[in-house]
């Protein structure tokens, strides 16, 4: 599904930051954390103000004209040839993998393909392009990683999260059973098929708890909302965070609110 070989760029002086709508509205801390991690690596972060949403919700629901109108409004945001980093495998996958198909045979075809080639999932970018070295300042904790299905299968970053967490000396990384299985989010799927989605997320939370994780971190806000929301409603002893928030809080030196 994903390009068999990824050619990472050399570390640039500037990047575009595409925050995504879920981060914008629900998890701005994760967005700020991503920006601060990049800046600490010496990269200037450009946040195009006119960004809204990648168009994925309409696209996966089958409303392709509506998705294209929204996606088209994003295409003009990245005039320079800097990499575009996205704190989400899902939105990253939409822009990298699906934009070329969405704009096929339209006036924007070439532009969409060019932009698609510059899209990077942010943790992948930190590890493979910035070669980030993390110095853990947090308290000891036990954590499980949930890599989203799109991060895993569309962006090919399944190894990245565990490698980053592995750099944190006070973090005991545990792996939940069936780690690669979907948490049941799937966008409108969770609303159209609530029982199936509910069954999936309940098992996901059980495996996290059974693995002994006190917290879980994830690449995507959809999964976070789903898994954390289930754990909260059902009072399960595990809480979640976006991996970027977690990495920033443990390494930024001001103690972090959760460490």
């Amino acid at each position: 599904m994903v390009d068999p070989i990824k050619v990472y760029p050399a570390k640039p002086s500037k990047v575009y930051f595409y925050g995504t709508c879920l981060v914008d509205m629900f998890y701005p801390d994760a967005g700020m954390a991503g920006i601060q991690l990049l800046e600490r690596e010496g990269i200037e972060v450009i946040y195009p103000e006119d960004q809204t949403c990648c168009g994925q919700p309409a696209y996966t629901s089958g409303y392709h004209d509506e998705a294209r109108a929204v996606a088209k409004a994003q295409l003009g945001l990245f005039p320079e040839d800097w990499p575009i980093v996205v704190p989400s495998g899902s939105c990253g996958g939409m822009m990298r993998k699906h934009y070329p198909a969405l704009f096929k045979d339209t006036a924007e075809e070439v532009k969409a393909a060019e932009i698609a080639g510059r899209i990077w999932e942010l943790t992948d970018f930190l590890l493979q392009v910035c070669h980030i070295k993390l110095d853990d300042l947090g308290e000891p904790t036990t954590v499980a990683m949930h890599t989203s299905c799109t991060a895993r299968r569309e962006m090919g970053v399944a190894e990245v999260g565990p490698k980053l967490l592995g750099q944190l000396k006070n973090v005991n990384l545990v792996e939940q059973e069936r780690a690669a299985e979907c948490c049941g989010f799937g966008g409108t799927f969770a609303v159209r098929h609530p029982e199936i989605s509910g069954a999936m997320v309940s098992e996901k939370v059980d495996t996290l708890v059974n693995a002994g994780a006190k917290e879980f971190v994830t690449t995507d806000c959809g999964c976070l909302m789903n898994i954390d929301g289930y754990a909260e409603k059902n009072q399960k002893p595990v809480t979640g965070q976006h991996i970027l928030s977690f990495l920033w809080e443990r390494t930024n030196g001001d103690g972090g609110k959760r460490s």
Partner: protein
Amino acid sequence: MTETAQQSPHHIDVKEFHPRARAAIHNPQIRQNFRKAMDGLMSKRKSAFEGWDLETLRDLGANIRLRALAHLPDLLEQLEQKLTENGITVHWASDGDEACKIVRDICLARNAKTVIKGKSMVSEEMELNHYLEEQGIEALESDLGEYIVQLAEETPSHIIMPAIHKNTEEISQLLHDKTGTDLSHDVEYLTASARLQLREKFMNADVGVSGVNFAVAETGTLCLVENEGNGRMTTTVPPCHIAVTGIEKVVPKLEDVTALLALLTRSATGQHITTYFNMISGPRKANELDGPEEVHVVLVDNGRSTIYQDDELLDTLRCIRCGACMNHCPVYTRVGGHAYGTTYPGPIGKILMPHMVGLDEGRHLPTASSLCGACGEVCPVKIPIPDLLVRLRQESVDGDKLHPAKVRGHGAKRSNMEAMIWKGWSWMHARPGIYRMGTRLGARFRKLQPGKLGGWTQYRTAPKLAAKTLHERIKERSQ
């Protein structure tokens, strides 16, 4: 035999997916049976491919199937010619009913009263058993799983393991009730008793009906993959053998079979090779001691040539029916095969069945997926199943009546209300100023956010809007 007549899928309303899925989810036995079986199958597949360059092999498999499909009309002509040269009679059926009639006519011409069947999903598509019963011809399944499903008057819940929804106890009880075997948890005993009953049927059957895994055009060979030996018995013991197959099963050359077979058995059951691999190339010859006097092939279209006309949907026809997509599907694992109400369940069913039952009847099939991509990741011939699901979703809600696409029931799921919501959503998100104002207002009035959000909050707390959007945080920071 009327008590073992198979329930006709005609009685199943495909649209009623939700109640069936709900019932399965709340049935701990079903949940446990599927979870356990799928976990086992996933782990077997994984170990079977250890030491293989799986991606290269999948590329090879995909290319073989793509090449075969690219030349499908020519290959079918070649296949017909070679099969005929080999003494096999070729029949063409445009749909399931026509295919059933062909089988019936062959049976009538031989005055056949009993049919023994090897496993065939195309015969399930045709609802052949049901049809033959109505014609006064007994049709008995000889694959153990199919036999169990037939005794239980059910339909297969998995394309490779039809009775996977039942555990040993349930099967023991069923065999006891229907055939009088002793109750036992000893799988070998149960298998042996079923075998004993079937053996007699093989000897007396007038006709054997089987499926086909690969039909080789250059040699006119029908390949049949199986584990129980019932396929070999079905195709060699009765005096007449009828193979039924979809028109997409043809491959150009014998050498194409090797890669596909290596992929099929490992993907399906995690086996390096099956116990039996049959290559059927004609009826018994004058100097041979066994084999059928007559061999027929029924090439069934049943919607396939319509799928074939669309460059994207065409990929659906690559399928070699291994079942790996369902084994790895988190939705299938939760709801089981019967919830779908279709001949083919799981991911492949979701992209294939809408062409057979239409997007009206099959309206819930393309949406019953989180698009997690596990199916596409394991598919041995790299069918982009998630992309095809999105395409079918688009077909279901598309309002373009002037240029209706090729899928039956195009636009059947479109609701004006939903279309309006997406139009509004699109309008707002294509206008950055409006979007920023809207999200800022949302953040400001977040306390007014509803605590209940339909199906979402049935299982989870509502997502919480942040006090300030990322847009605002960044703006403040730069000031």
